[in-house]
C-alpha cells in the first residue's frame, strides 16, 4: 500500500491534499519494533513524532511517589505518539514501547516537520489542528477510563 493511502487513514493528516501527503511522506522514516522496544522514555528529551501503522504502542507512566508504574493506554493503527514534545518541546511525558510483535511506526523528526511547515503553512495549520483534536480525544478516553475504575 502506498504511504499516501496509509496517511489518508491517519487523523493527523485529515484535510491534506494528495500532493501535501506526498510532501509529508518524503520526511518520514519507517521503524520496525520488537516487543518491549522503547521509542520514548519519560522525562527524556525527544524530537520525534511516531505514527503507528501496525501493532500497538503501550503508553506507560513511570513510578511516582503516589503511584506505581502503570500502562495507561495502548495506541494502535493510525494513532500518534510523541505529539506533545512536537508542540511544546518539553521532555517526554510518558514512556512508550512496542506492546506486540510486529509493531511498525513511521517517524517524523521535529526539525524536518518544522522546515516543511515553514515551506507550506497549510500543512502546519492542518497538522497542528489535528494534533489538538487528537489530544482532546485522548483526554476524553482518559476521563472515560478513570470513570470506569
Amino acid at each position, binding site marked *: 500500500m502506498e504511504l499516501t493511502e496509509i496517511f489518508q487513514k491517519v*487523523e493527523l493528516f*485529515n484535510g491534506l491534499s494528495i500532493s501535501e501527503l506526498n510532501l509529508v511522506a518524503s520526511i518520514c522514516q519507517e521503524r520496525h519494533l520488537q516487543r518491549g522496544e522503547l521509542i520514548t522514555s519519560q522525562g527524556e528529551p525527544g524530537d520525534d513524532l511516531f505514527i503507528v501503522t501496525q501493532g*500497538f504502542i503501550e503508553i506507560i507512566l513511570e513510578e511516582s511517589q503516589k503511584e506505581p508504574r502503570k500502562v495507561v493506554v495502548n495506541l*494502535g493503527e493510525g494513532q500518534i505518539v510523541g505529539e506533545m514534545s512536537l508542540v511544546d518541546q518539553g521532555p517526554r511525558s510518558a514512556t512508550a514501547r512496542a506492546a506486540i510483535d510486529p509493531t511498525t511506526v513511521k517517524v517524523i523528526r521535529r526539525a524536518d516537520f518544522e522546515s516543511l511547515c515553514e515551506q507550506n503553512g497549510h500543512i502546519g495549520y492542518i497538522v497542528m489542528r489535528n494534533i489538538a483534536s487528537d489530544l482532546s480525544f485522548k483526554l476524553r478516553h482518559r476521563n472515560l477510563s478513570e470513570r*470506569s475504575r
Partner: protein
Amino acid sequence: MNVYKVSYVVIGSEHPGAIMNRDHAPVVGERITLGEHEFEVIEVLNLMPPRGDFHYIHATVQLVKKKGKN
C-alpha cells in the same frame, strides 16, 4: 472512505484500554482483539461529531478471553 477512531475502555479488568482506527463502527456484541486479549463490546456511543471522513467513537468492552485460554 470512512475511518472510525475508537476509544476502547475496558471494564472488569486491569487492561488499560486502547485507541485505534477501524474500518467500521463497533457494534454491541462484537468481539475485538486488543493486543493479545479478546473483548466483547457492550456499549457504543459517539464521542465527538464526525469531521470529514473521520468518526469518533467510544466503546466499552469487557474481557472475554485471555491469551492462551478458552
